[in-house]
């Protein structure tokens, strides 16, 4: 893929992510899905463009709010939707659900239900790449809230002293559940923390797909060259509640409205049109196609079998 094709693909995946989550949100609102989910609507540029800046063989660790991330990494939407509906054909045979979408072979080392749970895994995965000299790098997603977990501290420090090829990619959406950044840490920019480990840190506008893409590309080069990890803070915003049950009491409607104006999809579309990478018709077609593909994924998932009860006891040990 050349750069232009990448941009088009990126737009496609961002639309898939949006459509996927709108569908999931619809399901949850109607109690059609079990459990809970964390939607990344409004954060698609951050999740998708960062992954698109990696090579296909690179690895990621994803989070509880991981739909955009894993779609960005390239995923089979059918298997993903099937997993969300708990079907046997899902990525995890229905055992994982929204919080555990993983595709180890494709380099997605898994979403994580534990805030900060992916930090150590990412570092270990990066160590493998270093020891095996694969040339691959790892991108570790985490949130602003996760940056207060001890696991963040230990992992970044270790990656730094061992010069491991990992990008710590913070999706700062300004809230850890109900707690605003301004209350959960005493610094304005999380990137400040990079200095505590002697590694470079960058801030990027997380709603600007192109900016995210470029910054991660640049970081990937640095990291791949063996210089050690990098921290990127991608400032963005989640439009919807933290999880399915969230009355949004901790923030104002105005704030949400303001951020909706910064829609990463609209912004990227405008860019693609302006740069004449896409025509209006082509952009529309991509959006339509994304919606269709999600519908197909739903159909696929709906037509998929439930996992047999006997599978309950399988897969505990290798």
């Amino acid at each position: 893929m050349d750069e232009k094709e990448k941009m088009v693909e990126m737009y496609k995946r961002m639309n898939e992510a949006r459509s996927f989550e709108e569908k999931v949100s619809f399901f949850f609102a109607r109690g059609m899905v079990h459990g809970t989910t964390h939607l990344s609507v409004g954060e698609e540029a951050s999740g998708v463009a960062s992954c698109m800046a990696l090579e296909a063989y690179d690895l990621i660790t994803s989070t509880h709010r991981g739909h955009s991330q894993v779609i960005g990494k390239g995923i089979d939407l059918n298997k993903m939707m099937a997993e969300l509906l708990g079907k046997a054909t899902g990525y995890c045979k229905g055992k994982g659900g929204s919080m555990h979408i993983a595709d180890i072979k494709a380099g997605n080392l898994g979403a994580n239900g534990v805030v900060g749970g992916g930090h150590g895994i990412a570092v270990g995965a990066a160590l493998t790449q270093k020891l095996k000299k694969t040339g691959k790098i790892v991108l570790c997603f985490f949130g602003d809230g996760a940056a207060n977990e001890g696991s963040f501290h230990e992992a970044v420090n270790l990656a730094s002293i061992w010069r491991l090829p990992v990008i710590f990619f913070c999706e700062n959406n300004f809230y850890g559940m109900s707690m605003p950044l301004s209350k959960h840490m005493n610094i304005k920019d999380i990137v400040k923390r990079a200095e505590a480990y002697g590694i470079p840190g960058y801030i990027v506008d997380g709603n600007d797909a192109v900016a995210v893409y470029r910054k991660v590309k640049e970081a990937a080069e640095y990291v791949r060259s063996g210089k050690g990890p990098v921290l990127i803070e991608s400032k963005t915003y989640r439009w919807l509640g933290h999880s399915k049950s969230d009355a949004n009491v901790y923030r104002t409607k105005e704030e949400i409205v303001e951020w909706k104006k910064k829609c990463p999809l609209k912004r990227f579309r405008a860019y693609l049109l302006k740069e004449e990478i896409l025509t209006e018709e082509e952009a529309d077609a991509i959006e339509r196609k994304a919606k269709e593909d999600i519908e197909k994924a739903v159909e696929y998932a709906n037509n998929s079998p439930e996992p047999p009860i006997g599978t309950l006891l399988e897969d505990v040990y290798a």
Partner: protein
Amino acid sequence: MREITYAEAIREAMSEEMRRDENVFLMGEDVGLYGGAFGVTVGMFEEFGEERVRDTPISEAVIAGAAAGAAVTGMRPVAEIMFMDFTTIAMDSLVNQAAKMRYMFGGKAKVPMVLRCPAGSGTGAAAQHSQSLEAWFCHVPGLKVVAPSTPADAKGLLKSAIRDDNPVIFVEQKLLYRKKGIVPEEEFIIPLGKADIKRKGTDVTIITYGRMAESVLSAAADMEQEGISIEVIDPRTLVPLDRETIIESVIKTGRAVVVHEAVKTGGYGGEIVSAISESEAFDYLDAPVLRIAGKDVPIPYNPELEKAAVPSVAEIKEAVRKVMNR
């Protein structure tokens, strides 16, 4: 008699204790304005203010560690870990610090803190949000462990836990939060370490706690029809365990089954089985004490699999029949 939910009962217990004793305060993730992930603390921020209902960052190790530090210096913190699964991050604070300070320091410290943690599966939240890890804490001298199965027990025991001078792990049941039960309006406390006989019976003793009490009671009601009379004992406090009540019952019935949601291997059921077997009740046993517990698997996402991971009423009945047919 009025009925309130398990969550409301917990909230009442905390609110009453906070009104009674200014040293009591809450801390945890999203316990403030948000009202807690399960709505347990709704309204408390408004009543007690942000100094006494403290939202923390997502930092479980220091939530528990700071609770220990506040407790040893004179406060009575009630700390919440949003899901029991995340006590994994707080284990050093709980096990090496809170539980051991008193002993290590020759009895010259006390650590009156409560750690609340919602446990159990059934919410579709999968392997990292569904565990029942009480057995770990029961294996740590210095900790007390409480696991109430009804709103009234939750209220009375939490009040005791808050007044207790030791670190108490208070295991709440996610699936019970919205269940209602009769809770007296007037103030009451339930002492730690006292089992409750939830149903009287003569043929088989079932020892159970937490969410499983409901299934056991329903199995017991069903089996009454079959002419089998089941005594249901809920220890409520796992440490200290009210051995006497259990043993007395087993001496009477000669048969016992232990039921819990936590995975079977290494679960607290083994302790209860052993306690019975080591006691004078051994000589009265007409059948082995059976354990009905969670399957030895992480909790899966799919709702049917998830259900199958946890003891069903049918399994409980089957176990009762097994011990009856000896």
